[in-house]
């Protein structure tokens, strides 16, 4: 591809502003992405990163401001015009059609898709295209059956197939193992260096920024707060720009316990996924009192099924779960008796009723006990609200009142309210799944401290997380899940990021 050089295009935003009603999501943001570079866009959740790129891609119309494509002013009024200008975006949530094959997905995405598809010819052309690409994906398998990494690759291939020269990647490595992420970013970096492509990458992983990006722009609360060449900035600089002067709660210290008894004991646990296929295979795991066992792994390797089994949302196919040496069946009575609690991922879906009030949600574990219930059936709202008010204060849940529907709270506050419900009592076993996903720094820090406090108090904590840094920070022991099995189990001091990364990919 000798003529490939110079194909990449540069994009610039000038004074981009987007106002939704009373909320200013983006204020006067000017960033410049030079052609043939890998440019990182850093910022906390809600900092305006997605608003900015959605304005660039024509999904939103900016309230003010304009865009320059290759130095010329360009009006991008809808995604189609972005596509015409050879701009494209890979979303965090896949935009592939699950039941269609990779080839069907690629062909149907083409604006000039023929009315009658000659599959023989199309497949030949696609194979020839794949041969020129840095990575490959099986063409005739339905996307459903591809791994998350393959789907991510296919999304990027789709952009290249459609001849996009400027591509926005929204957290492209969140579903990849560290090795896969390194491989993909390395190959993409190669393409930008050769001038075939320009990439704007939304990320929150400093490691990826320092290793692969040429330049970085940082947003905070809808404003551009700094940036420049990656080589001239330290991660501390970047972190400070991202967080600003928000007060962050001091992390609780880690208490060292002596040897302690096993509290949660899983033996040969098997479970199936929604399609009836094995998802959890022969998992053995012991969690001691006062210990956090972190389960690392790329999403979709059986972790969510395991958590669902432990929280009673999915049937156990085979195996045994013991808590304090007693058989544990995840039903309300036993959870109450054995003091098993959980913080689930997507709390609004898994652990709260969106349209019930905050007070009712906080009472979900205790509504049938005194003081809320008297005579075994009479519920009094007074004590329920009083209890809720106390917990709302203690856990700093921001809500207008105890009677606000749960769904109106922000993600961080929903998680705090659930935290208040689950952790305010006496906890022996705590099951935690991706507790900080999508939360701002202050909430993340608060929630991690609470988990650590429970550990220090002597609870057995099982922490499932897709964020390896979270596991390295919190866990005493790490277990890695890959393909439904535990591929590695080690004390946190006896392993490292590389070994964990290999185990995530299924190796030993």
């Amino acid at each position, binding site marked *: 591809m000798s003529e490939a050089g110079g194909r990449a295009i540069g994009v610039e935003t000038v004074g981009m502003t987007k106002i939704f009603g009373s909320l200013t999501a983006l204020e006067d943001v000017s960033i410049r992405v030079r052609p043939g570079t890998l440019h990182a866009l850093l910022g906390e959740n809600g900092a305006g990163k997605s608003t900015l790129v959605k304005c660039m891609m024509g999904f939103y119309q900016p309230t003010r401001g304009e865009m320059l494509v290759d130095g010329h002013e360009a009006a991008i009024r809808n*995604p189609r015009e972005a*596509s015409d200008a050879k701009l494209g975006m890979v979303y965090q949530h896949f935009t*592939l*059609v699950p*039941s*269609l094959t990779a080839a069907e997905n690629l062909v*149907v995405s083409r604006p000039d*898709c023929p009315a009658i*598809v000659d599959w023989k010819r199309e497949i030949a052309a696609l194979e020839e295209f794949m041969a020129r690409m840095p990575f490959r994906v099986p063409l005739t398998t339905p996307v459903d059956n591809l791994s998350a990494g393959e789907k991510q690759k296919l999304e990027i291939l789709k952009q290249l197939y459609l001849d996009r020269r400027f591509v926005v990647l929204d957290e492209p490595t969140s579903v990849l193992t560290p090795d896969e992420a390194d491989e993909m970013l390395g190959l993409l970096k190669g393409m930008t260096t050769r001038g075939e492509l320009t990439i704007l990458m939304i990320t929150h992983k400093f490691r990826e920024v320092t290793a692969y990006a040429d330049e970085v722009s940082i947003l905070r609360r809808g404003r551009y707060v700094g940036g420049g060449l990656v080589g001239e900035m330290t991660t501390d600089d970047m972190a400070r720009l991202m967080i600003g002067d928000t007060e962050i709660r001091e992390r609780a210290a880690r208490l060292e316990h002596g040897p302690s008894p096993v509290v949660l004991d899983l033996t040969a646990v098997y479970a*199936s996924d929604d399609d009836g296929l094995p998802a959890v295979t022969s998992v053995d795991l012991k969690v001691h009192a006062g210990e956090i066992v972190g389960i690392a792994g790329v999403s979709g390797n059986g972790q969510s099924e395991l958590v669902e089994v432990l929280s009673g949302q999915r049937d156990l196919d085979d195996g045994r779960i013991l808590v304090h040496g007693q058989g544990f069946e995840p039903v309300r009575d036993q959870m109450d008796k054995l003091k098993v609690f959980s913080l689930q991922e997507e709390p609004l879906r898994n652990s709260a009723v969106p349209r019930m009030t905050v007070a009712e949600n906080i009472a979900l574990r205790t509504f049938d006990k005194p003081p809320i219930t008297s005579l075994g059936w009479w519920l009094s709202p007074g004590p329920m609200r009083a209890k809720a008010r106390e917990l709302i204060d203690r856990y700093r849940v921001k809500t207008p009142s105890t009677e606000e529907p749960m769904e109106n709270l922000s993600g961080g506050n929903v998680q705090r309210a659930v935290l208040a419900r689950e952790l305010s009592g006496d906890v022996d076993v705590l099951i935690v799944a991706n507790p900080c996903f999508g939360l701002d720094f202050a909430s993340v820090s608060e929630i991690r401290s609470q988990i650590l406090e429970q550990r220090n108090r002597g609870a057995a904590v099982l922490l499932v997380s897709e964020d390896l840094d979270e596991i390295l920070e919190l866990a005493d022991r790490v277990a890695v899940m890959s393909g439904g099995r535990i591929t590695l189990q080690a004390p946190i001091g006896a392993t490292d990021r590389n070994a964990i990364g290999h185990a995530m990919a299924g190796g030993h």
Partner: protein
Amino acid sequence: MSDALTTVAVAMFAGAVRVSTPFLFVSLGETLTEKSGRINLGLEGTLVFGAMSAYAVSYLSGNPWVGVLAAGLAGSVFGMAHGFFCRLPKVSDIAIGIALMLFGSGLAFFFGKGFIQPTAPRLQAIDFGFLTSDPQLKVALQINPLFFIGLALAVVMWWALANTRFGLIVRMTGDSAATAKAMGVSVDLVRFVATTIGGFLAGVGGAFLSLYYPGSWNEGLSSGQGLMAVALVIFSRWNPLMCVAAALLFGAAGALGPALQSVGISQGYHFFNAAPHILTLAILIASSSSKRSLEGAPGELSITK
């Protein structure tokens, strides 16, 4: 005894071919609609209204095929209505479907009152009787052309869903509306078109009922066949070719009662007549599981979401 068995087998074969046609048309129409991501439960009403309009137009024009066309067009109007209402925000396709089911039947009874008495010209079967000398088979081999049209349609639909732009876009819309929107496809338009075609096919299915078998117009004509056809789509896993097999199976089940009566077993006649309904229930129970999600179900369907 073996004579009786043969008689029952032949009668069931004949029944399968004869009774299956409306099932086939309705389920093909519903397959296309559901592939685009919507459920149209109103096809029962469309079927009844199609039957009425086919009979009326055939009577008035003297040509049964004009009646078939009229039934298809009337069905399309019902499909369009469904497609139109469902694109409004916060409207449930299930609720609209039930409303249209009642509305279609009611409207058909209202307009159809005057056509219960007169006799309209009926569709002629193609006689394949020359293939055999057996008198029973000779009768069974009187096959309506609509049956063959239905078979051809199933094959064409199966091919088109995999090999045409239209087919790919319908499947994309039904499986991931967000993706379709991101590609600039109008989801509402695709579903509107798919529901309209689905309504057309259901209307034609109705025409078969009033113009061939049973071959007259009355208010109890359909007895829920349109609803059973919707269940049949789930059983066929949204595959047009499987629709053919399922329709034949349902047809044969429907012919069980009359077939047994023809050899003198009249005990439990009404029970055997209920065979298709029992089969619907049995199949739905057997093919679903509390642990698995439905295999092959379009991701956007409101029942599978």
